[in-house]
């Protein structure tokens, strides 16, 4: 099934070490996205970067020693993103949020089923 609609894309930049209530921040935000029914969210790990605080973040070759920059990219309707932003205000201590208007084409296999 193919649907086409205008949407909003939101990108959040922060560090992989950042936590929220003991959980990695990106996992916490992703759980929130799911809660709001946002159709697509993905977290990318950068190999190097810097953000507020101008501390350079490196990705380590040792996968358990993490302080890489991460980018969370979320695509949803204006309304869903509008609901997400107030949550981010409380969750993201140090980071950057950028949004842009986009046009989306969504392909899905289960044509009959409504999104959960």
């Amino acid at each position, binding site marked *: 099934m*193919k649907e086409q609609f205008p949407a909003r894309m939101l990108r959040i930049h922060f560090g992989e070490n950042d936590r929220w209530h003991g959980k990695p921040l990106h996992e916490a935000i*992703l759980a929130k996205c799911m809660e709001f029914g946002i159709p697509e969210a993905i*977290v990318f790990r950068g190999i190097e970067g810097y953000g507020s605080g101008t501390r350079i973040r490196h990705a380590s070759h040792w996968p358990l020693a993490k302080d890489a920059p991460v980018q969370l990219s979320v695509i949803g309707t204006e309304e869903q993103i509008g609901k997400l932003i107030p949550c981010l205000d409380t969750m993201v201590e140090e980071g950057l949020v950028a949004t842009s208007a986009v046009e989306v084409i969504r392909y899905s*296999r289960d044509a009959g089923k409504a999104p959960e």
Partner: protein
Amino acid sequence: MLNAGKAIKVSIYLSDGATRHGVPVYSAILDYLFYRGVAGATVTKGVAGFGADHHMHSANMVEISDRLPIKIEFIETREKVDAILGKLEELAGTGLIEMQETTVVKPAQVSKPKQLVPPAHLKIEGKAQMMRIYVSEEDRWKDKPLYEALVAAMRANDIAGVTVYRGILGYGAHRRMHKDKPLSTAHHGSVMLSAIDTEEKLRAFLPLVDQMVAEGLVVFSDVDIIKYAYRALEVEAQS
């Protein structure tokens, strides 16, 4: 510089093992042709052959043959060939030299020298679109990963550039959480392809995306491109 029209093709047949003053004969001949300004020459190595001595020479895995046949071929004007033929005969030693009339249909073009110092501030700016495609890393198209097939398809369709990003965590259309586990080589996650080109080209590519992507998300956004065209300049100078 060779022009289109009548010319002479010279072929020289040698043995790989033949040397002259310690260097292989073919290399001595090639050097001679090069410094005499011959338009171009090609040396090919045969896999098997025999010559005047009627010894069969072949490439054999067991005995490493160093006496394989070698053929040097070049095309030049009659005047030039006449001028260098005497020396070639001497260089070829026991080898055979043959020449025939030929017609140059399209002469090779000299590549123009590359611009060594590109203008420092040459940039191309303009409006373009960014197309991001979100799929799962396990998705396959025919016999290869979908993201690889998409990159190959974009390349074949002259899309200016595409980069594939692997997500460490994410979910998509099927609402299954993908998580990258540290210390595991197998990766089952979300990937994003990001391509930038003009709106027309990306829209023209979209039917292929329709065919290839069964499940996923395609996101279009307007972008301003600023392109530093260093490499583009070198390519233009060559053509």
